Every structure is written in C-alpha cells, then in structure tokens.
C-alpha cells in the first residue's frame, strides 16, 4: 500500500516504543533504523517484527525509525499498527 503522509505513534517512556514513519517514493524500498535499550538481546527480534508488520500492510517504500525503551511485543505491534494506519490516513475514531 502507498503511504500518504508522515506519522508517528508511541512515546519515549520506559516499556514503550516510538515509531516514526515517512513515506518514500516508489522503488526506494525500506529504510529502517532501530535503536533500543535492549538492542543486544532483542534487536534482531525487533527488526524481524517491524518487517513482518510492514509485510502485512504490504508497505514497500518507507523510512521507519523505531526508538525502543524495552517495549513488550504487544506494545511494539500496537505502535506499528497505529503509526502505519495513521500514515495511510486510515486511522479511525480519533482527532488528528
């Protein structure tokens, strides 16, 4: 799917993750930057998860920055889902 706009979700609090998304033009691919307070232990899992969710939404061209403070998997998935639906302009039931 084609991203419509810049979007973000999450916070810099402990146990949360901040996701920033910027649409890229066609064929530019995925540019993913991940930093985490638990990079050594969970960095690989985190990057796999980000790619899986992007696959799920069929997003191929994106610049995504993830700043993780030890978020658990359901939180990471939720923040990705929120940021992506916002970037797709598909967010529901919220003020912009």
């Amino acid at each position, binding site marked *: 799917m084609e991203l419509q706009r810049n979007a973000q979700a999450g916070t810099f609090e402990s146990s949360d993750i901040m996701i920033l998304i910027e649409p890229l033009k066609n064929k530019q691919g995925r540019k993913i930057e991940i930093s985490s307070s638990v990079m050594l232990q969970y960095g690989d899992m985190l990057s796999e998860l980000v790619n899986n969710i992007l696959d799920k939404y069929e997003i191929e061209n994106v610049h995504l920055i993830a700043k993780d403070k030890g978020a*658990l998997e359901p939180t990471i998935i939720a923040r990705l889902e929120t940021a992506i639906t916002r970037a797709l302009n598909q967010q529901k039931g919220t*003020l912009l």
Partner: protein
Amino acid sequence: MKTKRRTMLYIPGNNPAMLQQGGIYGADSLLLDLEDAVALNEKDSARILVKNMLNSISYYNTEVCVRVNHLDTPFGIEDLETIVPLQPDAIRFPKTETVKELKKLIDIIESIENKHNLPHNKMTIHAMIETALGVQNVFEIAKFSKRVDAITIGGQDLTADMNIVNAKDGSGIDLARKMIVMAAKANNIDAIDTVFVDVNDEEGLRLETEYAKKIGFTGKAVINPRQIDIIHEVYTPTEAEIRRAFRIIKEFKKNKDAGIGVFAIDGKMVDAPVVARARHTLDLAEIKY
C-alpha cells in the same frame, strides 16, 4: 460466591508500562481506560494498544473492564467495534443519563456480538453515573437490563455537573451516592464508589472508604495501586467479626435442623437478616461455611 469488587483500579489506556503490570497489584478488578485518561488525538493509539494487551497479557484472575468513550463522541463506536469482539469481563459506559442511551449502547454491543457469533450473556455492563440527570434516572438505568451488573459514581464529573466548588468533604454528592447505592441494591447489583484523588492522603482515603462501606457501596475505584491495600483492609472483616459470623451460621444450622427460625446468641436475637449479614461477612473474608 459473586465476584468481589472491593477495588477497581484505573489504568490509562495509552500507558504500556501500566497496562503490562495491571494484574500484579491484587486489585479485584481492572479498568482499562480509553476515556478521560487518553488525549483526544491518541484515542486510536490507546484503543489499538489495549486490544493488543488484552490479547496477550495475563491479568491472572482479576476481572478486566474497559471504559469506552461515550457514544456522543467520535470515538465511542470505534471503541466498541474494537473491544466487544475481545469480550473483556465488562464494558464500563461513562456518563449514563437515560435508559434510551443505555438501550442504544446495548443494541450496538449485541449487534457486534451477533456479527462475531458471540453470546449476549458473557460480558457485563457497568453504567457510570456522572451527571444530575443520570442520578435522577439511576433506578431505571440499574433495572433496565440483566447485563448491567454494577452502577458506579463518577464523583469528579458529577461535582462539576452540579457546579459545586470546594467539595472536598463530598457533602454535595452525598445524596447522589445514597441514591446510587439504593438503586443498585434494589436491583441486587454492585455499587462502586468514586475515586479518592489525593494519593498521598492515606488517612483521608481510609475515612472515605469507611463511609462508602457504611452507606452500602460494594467497593471503590482506585487511581493508584498504593490505595488498594487500604481499601481491602476496610472491606475485610476483623477477626472478631469473622468469629461471631461463624458462630451465628453454626447456631443457625443447628437450630434450623431442629425447626427453630429465630434464636438468641449472647442475649441478642438472631433472625434471617442477621444470618444474611453473617454470610456476607464470611464471603468477604473468603471463608467457606
């Protein structure tokens, strides 16, 4: 034995740290909040987070309720569409004022349940009374549906709705408290008292809880885990109360077998209401009889 609801702990719906730890504090019930605790531009974020947490975090044996936004807001319907299919133990509906809006809420919930092939009798509804109009209609609201199994009072909003200032002693909402309890008792459902906002005032919390217990509230909403133990202490019968209740039940059984309905212990008459109260005491103390 019914689910105990001595404490219902509010957890902000957009706070992962608190959502993941909600189950550990020993509260009887959790209130994952999509309403007042969430900023208007983070409603989607909180809703999606709560959905994911409900799907994967264990809250052990704690009752889990989700407070949704009112149907008059642009968020309420989407909250229900997302949360109802997950069937938490209960949905808490804010600012309930009339039977009409309660009916609308239940119709929406049941149509979502139909869509997902879910039963209509598993998830219950807690109606929150937060306005003068809601207080006036509370009996009808409590009576309207079997799904409503608790009425709760939102003290902050009610105080504001009634234009009461300087209300720390709670006298302004005292009638509302009692009407809500009465409506709940008349329909044999729970009545939950409002939060005590000053988390550092342990003595104030204890006094207010003692009062709530005295006028018939089943429990109290909680905004900080540190408040839980104090409220539980107030609602837990003392050893002397338990001993006496136990004795009453024992004597009652003995007398019942002999065909005697009313008898005396230590010169005090024991009849059906005294026995019922003794049972309630033992229930609260989690003692089998």
